[in-house]
């Protein structure tokens, strides 16, 4: 095998100046030739380390090898054995800290662009007139209810269908996808792609029930009358606010609200769509994660003249993916690092007009290992704004914990599970994703879904239930 090229095949993108004003997807994807060239950089290690970095254990050398040899259908068949959401994962997984971070090439040169190749093969399949169906085991007659049609729930649904169980997915919103449809913007994950992968799970045999709020429309106890097992994947629902004076002024959004209006409700197309959104001229987004980047970049696309990220630490501590920060910088987002808001200033009509902030400096490392920001005395200053998006995280959605007696919940409101099995304190009930971990990533939720699905299958076969939280 020839020595791999030291740099990966670049993916073409929309020009930053153009894309900052539209909602179209930023990267264009690989052509088959580009994909083949990139796939040929893979050494096809006998003991591939990349797979260890993947929470759903995709056979990475298997599908990349098939692409390198031009066997694209084979590549897709390999992919779908372990991952039913490849077009999504290829776009939103943090590959640099997972599969690509473990790639042996990464020690000496750029790792294989595994994410780009995953995206390529999924998009290629979508352009064909047929698709690879999952192989299913014979029907077991057992019924599984999945609550929440986000990344964790869809993974459980896909896996349980393969095991031969009947699956019904209940979704509170009017569209399936969870954070993939309400949270992640069109320019990063087109909704048509989510729809396609959700449709695949439906075609595999899942029944999808939208507009069904478990906890309210029916409780888990009631679902257990009709289903043999229940998986809870209801996500990190409730937004955190800064809890600063003036936070209820007009023009101040949680990131959940801002992104839900724009993404799920298509407020960027108002008045063709009915849901409005404030099209601020000077928008400040508080936070340093991927959601903050998504919000600040959405603000630009909604017409902001200036979109500012306010973050209390420095660039290197930002939890957002490097690629997202890079994209934001390219598009002209202004970053105010080492800056912490202390209050909101509103005008007489109740609209926010400034964000009062303190400058920070980095002190000793805190529990997270990151240097803790310490306020600089007397450094108060104001950022004039007409819109603020608070993107500092979420706590778990309270509806199910509140309405499910016997379900053990942590002080933070997360559902307590045995991490090895996803089993909760309530017999027949499993959980995974952000409702268990607090706000995390799509792929970690999918990994938790995979673990829970295996454990559900085992429970349905054996009927054995051990108390995962007890001392046994």
């Amino acid at each position, binding site marked *: 095998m020839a020595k791999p090229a030291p740099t990966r095949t670049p993916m073409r993108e929309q020009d930053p100046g153009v894309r900052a004003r539209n909602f179209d997807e930023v990267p264009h994807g690989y052509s088959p030739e580009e994909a083949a060239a990139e796939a040929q950089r893979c050494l096809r290690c006998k003991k591939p380390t990349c797979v260890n970095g993947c929470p759903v254990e995709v056979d990475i050398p298997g599908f990349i090898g098939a692409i390198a040899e031009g066997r694209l259908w084979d590549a897709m068949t390999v992919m779908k054995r372990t991952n039913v959401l490849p077009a999504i994962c290829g776009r939103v997984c943090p590959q640099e800290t997972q599969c690509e971070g473990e790639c042996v090439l990464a020690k000496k040169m750029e790792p294989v662009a595994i994410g780009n190749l995953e995206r390529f093969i999924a998009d290629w399949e979508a352009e064909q007139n047929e698709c690879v169906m999952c192989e299913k085991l014979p029907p077991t007659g057992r019924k599984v209810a999945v609550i929440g049609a986000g990344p964790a729930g869809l993974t459980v649904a896909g896996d349980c269908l393969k095991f031969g169980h009947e699956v019904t997915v209940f979704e509170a*919103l009017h569209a399936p996808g969870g954070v993939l449809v309400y949270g992640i913007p069109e320019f990063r994950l087109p909704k048509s792609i989510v729809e396609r992968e959700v449709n695949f799970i439906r075609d595999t045999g899942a029944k999808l029930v939208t507009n069904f*709020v478990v906890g*309210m429309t029916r409780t888990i106890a009631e679902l257990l009358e009709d289903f043999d097992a229940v998986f809870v994947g209801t996500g990190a629902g409730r*937004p955190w606010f800064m809890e600063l004076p003036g936070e209820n002024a007009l023009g101040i959004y949680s990131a959940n609200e801002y992104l839900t209006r724009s993404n799920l*409700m298509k407020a960027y197309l108002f008045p063709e*769509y009915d849901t409005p959104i404030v099209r601020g001229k000077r928008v400040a987004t508080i936070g340093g994660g991927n959601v903050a980047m998504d919000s600040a970049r959405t603000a630009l696309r909604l017409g902001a003249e200036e979109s500012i990220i306010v973050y209390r630490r420095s660039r290197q501590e930002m939890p957002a993916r490097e690629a997202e920060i890079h994209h934001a910088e390219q598009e002209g987002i202004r970053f105010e690092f080492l800056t912490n808001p202390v209050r909101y200033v509103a005008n007489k009509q*109740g609209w926010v007009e400034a964000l009062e902030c303190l400058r920070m400096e980095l002190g000793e490392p805190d529990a997270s290992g990151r240097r803790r920001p310490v306020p600089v005395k007397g450094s108060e200053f104001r950022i004039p704004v007409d819109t603020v998006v608070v993107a500092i995280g979420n706590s778990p*959605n*309270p509806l199910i914990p509140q309405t499910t007696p016997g379900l053990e919940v942590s002080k933070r409101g997360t559902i307590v599970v045995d991490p090895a099995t996803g089993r909760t304190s309530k017999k027949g009930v499993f959980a995974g994703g952000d409702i268990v971990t607090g706000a995390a990533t799509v792929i970690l939720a999918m990994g938790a879904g995979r673990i829970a699905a295996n454990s559900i299958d085992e429970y349905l076969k054996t009927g054995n239930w051990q108390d995962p939280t007890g001392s046994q």
Partner: protein
Amino acid sequence: MSRILKKELLAPGIKRFELDAPDVARKARPGQFVVLRIHERGERIPLTIADTRPEDGVVVIVFLEVGKTTRELGELEAGQEIMDFIGPLGRPSEIENFGTAVCVAGGVGTPEIYPVARALKQAGNRVIAIIGFRSQALVTMETEMRSVSDELIVTTDDGSYGRKGFVTDALNELLARGEKPGRVFAVGPVIMMKMVAECTRAAGVPTVASLNPIMVDATGMCGVCRCTVGGEMKLACVDGPEFDAHQVDFDELLTRLKVYLPEEKRALEHWQEGHGTCRCAGKEAGNG
């Protein structure tokens, strides 16, 4: 999908729908609400549940046509369907025997307080209801309210029917004549609920108000319905919609309800301009 089984005009601009929504009907309790979205391009709006008939799978909603969405809703006829109908949402009203319970409603708050009044009556309360309207033409649900109340007082702002004045005038009279209600329930315009809270604060009568902030998902996810209650931030969708009226910052709620006034006007105009033409065919959403 929820099919409209029956449509009635209760008063000018006030419509009543019976909808086929068995899942909602089975679980709904007084004080809870639904969220609906008429069609693919619609917004999600919350509406209080006005009644249910669980055995028939029926949910009743009553709404006042104010903006684009409620007017469009009002144009639907029996037999047509509402695309998304979600519920029940919110915490139910706290129903127990308070001795005497007073239900105060203004305008379209009347059909919304009806199931609360009925439940209070069934729980053994002596129910006094005060329902207020701008004028006689807008009086709705009087017979129904009378059937679940020991005493019913109807007020109109202009005196064209019942007692002239506001619901708070009647409430003040009740308190002045020595009534000692164990609980007052207020449902209606924010300003009315604020005034009710002021009436009962001095008398020390526990009072709850059903708040009506803007909502999107209404499951606790977006935070737009945040209200200040007793100095704390609460979400009306999952922590409410009913709160201790003496603790609610009604002025903040009034301000927050105005956030989209320009957009609401624009949406209505946009809809009226396109009215009469078929909106479903061949009209592509412009992407800027």
